[in-house]
């Protein structure tokens, strides 16, 4: 003899016979499984290291308008004539050198290059990130240019 259908209180058909404590245990088990699964599927984390050169972009660009040599110029090195060009002319045109050696007999300039020409790169950082060429100028005892070389460093 079957029960009348109206005695079933659960609104979901077929679920009326589920044991409540059993259902709670099942839910707990499922929750625990999901938690364990979530822990296990955790992935790798990436670490970003700070850039070695934290200067803002504006500082790394050619310093326009500061001195003639800081503007890109295709004829920047036109003044360099071995046996003729004097130290004063070089310093007036290119500014102070990045480094000197042998009692300022050898001068070094760091140059950048753009489609408009060469420009003197200010030496604020130790690296060569913004430098394209190293200009080496060897002067004689009278301060006249003896030999020079444009070395491509990058």
């Amino acid at each position, binding site marked *: 003899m079957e029960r009348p259908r109206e005695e079933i209180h659960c609104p979901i058909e077929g679920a009326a016979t*589920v044991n409540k404590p059993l259902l709670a245990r099942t839910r707990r*088990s499922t929750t625990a*499984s999901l938690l*364990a699964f979530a822990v*296990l599927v*955790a992935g790798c984390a990436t*670490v970003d290291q700070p850039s070695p050169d934290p200067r803002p972009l504006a500082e790394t660009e050619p310093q326009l308008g500061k001195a003639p040599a800081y503007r890109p110029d295709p004829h920047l090195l036109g003044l360099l004539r071995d046996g003729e060009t004097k130290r004063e002319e070089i310093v007036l045109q290119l500014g102070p050198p990045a480094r000197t050696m042998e009692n300022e007999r050898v001068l070094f300039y760091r140059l950048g290059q753009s489609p408009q020409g060469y420009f003197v790169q200010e030496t604020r950082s130790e690296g060569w990130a913004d430098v394209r060429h190293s200009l080496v100028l060897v002067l004689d005892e009278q301060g006249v240019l003896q030999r020079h070389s444009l*070395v491509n460093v990058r």
Partner: protein
Amino acid sequence: MNLMSTTTFSKRNWFCWSWAGASAVLASCLVSGCVIVPVPVNHHTAASRTNVQTDDILWLVPGQTTREEVLLRLGEPDAVTEDDLSMSYRWEKIRLGLFAAVFAGYGGGSGYSEYARDYTLDLHFDPCGKFERGEVKKSKLTLKRTL
């Protein structure tokens, strides 16, 4: 009779759920892992000069090559002693990449790390400015960046 069979079914259902959960946890544990693939690379870092190589020591002739020749060929050195008798050229190269991937169940992650080596070409000159001796030094690999 009907209730008995329902209870049996519910117990079986609970066992099924339990087994499913335990299996999921076990499967997650079993398929979890980490794969590390070393990638050989050989390129200069962004801030390094690129015009000096370890082979540059080969064209230097002791007692013959002058400091001036070295400077005109290699450019500005990275370090010079006050007496100009010793100078160094430095460069940095990425020599190893490590691709790492972690798998865990349906999830995971991956990353790429680059390891760099510093090189130094130390040159020593006599008081007349002639090349005396030189050596190339290599540092250990150090972590440069992680992507």
